[in-house]
């Protein structure tokens, strides 16, 4: 169902190429996202994993042409079904309609002063163009779709009256109102209780299958990626360091950072796990090393790593790694 790749069996929806986002600071421009390449195919669930400061959230917003000032997009292209999303006119048409976004904190996108019903109504009237009783019917349908029981009552509720899980469901309902083809989910379950996170993930999984919506899942949680995504990209310091199908990433991680991340999380289903973690401290964005950003913490680092950042190269079918220490890297070939 969800195979994308070099054979091009599925349609490419989103193509991001060399996207670079910069933030001016007193010490010069800091790159939040540095030459990022990414593709999402139809019916695909792509995960982007990274820690704080990896630029994953900046990336999520930049794809929709939204970068908080003083940051700005400094280069690269974002194409949605072939059209340039960085063009304001295209972005306005696509944003919130064909590509919808949900966030960690639903209060960001829900209006605290309006009821759930009023927000859905406004959305359906303005964006979808529904009128009359169809609006209410569709609102109830949406709430039902995201598993909100007692929907007619909930339409009258304000966001603050709902529990965290319920708010997240409402936000998903508003995101789905315009029947998007791609949903960008930025840490949608972070901060929720374990059992509620499980509900929301299951809901997202079912919705993406039933409605055929592709999902770009941005998260720091390897568990969420493993349970949810088809393919995953690992980000460190604004760059993609590894890209692989989900099974291969977890069975045989190639980049030292991916490896380190996997050795950082204990498993609830195994009695003894050794946690090695990654030595050192998270990267300080103000002091960017010229070479590989992971070099200062990397156990395999060599002198060459300090000079220029390693390019992302293909090492096998659908597998890409940015590391000088991975032999057999083919330096040609198109992006998956």
């Amino acid at each position, binding site marked *: 169902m969800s195979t994308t790749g070099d054979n091009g069996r599925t349609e490419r929806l989103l193509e991001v190429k060399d996207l670079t986002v910069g933030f001016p600071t007193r010490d010069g421009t800091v790159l939040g996202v540095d030459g990022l390449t990414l593709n999402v195919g139809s019916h695909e669930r792509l995960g982007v994993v990274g*820690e*704080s400061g990896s630029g994953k959230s900046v990336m999520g917003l930049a794809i929709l042409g939204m970068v908080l000032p003083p940051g700005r997009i400094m280069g690269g292209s974002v194409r949605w079904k072939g059209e340039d999303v960085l063009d304001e006119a295209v972005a306005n048409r696509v944003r919130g309609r064909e590509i919808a976004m949900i966030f960690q904190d639903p209060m960001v996108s829900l209006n605290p002063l309006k009821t759930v019903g009023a927000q859905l109504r406004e959305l359906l009237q303005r964006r979808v163009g529904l009128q009359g009783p169809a609006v209410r019917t569709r609102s109830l349908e949406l709430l039902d779709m995201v598993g909100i029981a007692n929907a007619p009552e909930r339409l009258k509720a304000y966001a603050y009256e709902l*529990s965290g*899980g*319920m708010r997240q469901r409402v936000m998903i309902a508003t995101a789905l109102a315009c029947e998007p083809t791609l949903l960008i989910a930025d840490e949608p379950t972070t901060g929720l*209780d*374990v*059992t*509620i*996170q*499980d*509900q929301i*993930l*299951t809901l997202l999984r079912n919705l993406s299958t039933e409605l055929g919506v592709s999902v770009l899942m941005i998260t*720091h*949680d*390897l*568990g*969420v*990626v*493993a*349970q*949810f995504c088809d393919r995953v990209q690992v980000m460190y310091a604004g760059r993609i360091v590894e890209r692989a199908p*989900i*099974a291969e990433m*977890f*069975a045989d991680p190639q980049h030292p950072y991916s490896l*380190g*991340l*996997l*050795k*950082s*999380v*204990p*498993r*609830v*289903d195994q*009695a003894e*796990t050794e*946690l*090695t*973690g*990654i*030595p050192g*401290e*998270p990267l300080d964005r103000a002091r960017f090393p010229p070479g590989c950003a992971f070099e200062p913490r990397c156990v395999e680092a060599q002198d060459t790593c300090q000079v220029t950042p390693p390019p992302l190269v293909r090492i096998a079918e659908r597998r890409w790694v940015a590391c000088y220490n991975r032999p057999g890297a083919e330096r040609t070939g198109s992006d998956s």
Partner: protein
Amino acid sequence: MNEPVVPLVESRDVSVHFSRWVGSRRRTVYALDDFSIAVAPGETVGLVGESGCGKSTAGRALLGAVKPTKGQVLFEGKDVTNLSRRNWRAMRKQVQMIFQDPYSALNPKIKVGESVAEPFMVHTRKRGKELEAAVAELLETVGMTASAADKYPHAFSGGQRQRIVIARALALHPGFVVADEATAALDVSIQPQIVNLLVELKESVGLSYLFISHNLAVVRHVSDRVAIMYLGHLMEIGSHHDIYENPTHPYSQALLSAVPVPDPTTRGDHEPLKGDLPSPMDPPKGCRFNTRCPLAVEQCFEERPPLRERSSGHLVACWVN
């Protein structure tokens, strides 16, 4: 709870209720109800649960930072629930706490050295060079350099700050430390550094922990025994093995299956637990889990199930399982 040794810290039927203004009404929050737990010397007890389950309140009650509404707290077998102020201060040296958020656990306006030195300044006569040496030694114990003492907290990353917080907690050689979500605010790759440090210190300094966390995987990694809480009630307590290999309470089972395992080969279809957590201001009668329990029978809505021993040291509060 039939430890052969005298527990280091013990709570007996401790309840903590407090009132809070909600809009214009004063409501009672049932944070903790009849909570009994014992931590043996050198033992790590994991305390797991979701938000509002009372795990932080339980930890603070054991430290005496929260006065129980009912019940007793015992330290080395002595009742310390109603200690006088002076005796209480003496006991303060023996119990300490590590917090979730290392960003707010250190005063941004004072230097790291003074933060770490504070317990000495309050409880000992160490001053000057002697104090500096003690602080330097503590910082080195937690893997920092002594020069960190001259800097302000903003100069350090989250993981480093957490090390400093641990150094401060260890200053007076406490026997018992409550770690409240000690790694939750840290980056994934930094968490093991802190977890491993805590495990090492347990051996080298001789500590007992109450390790409070919502992260079942981390708790499994560090704990000897594990207690699972839901809405102020203890649902199940047992050895590491009992809880993870043979979870008996329906809530424990649901909680364990809800954790996303970082391994795609474990993907399976499990039915997520339905419903939301009820409010601790309005907990359900009987078993507090009855609103979401797939196995609930009539009795569960009438009467609170007592903790009953299933096998040695494995206690479960459930009428059905």
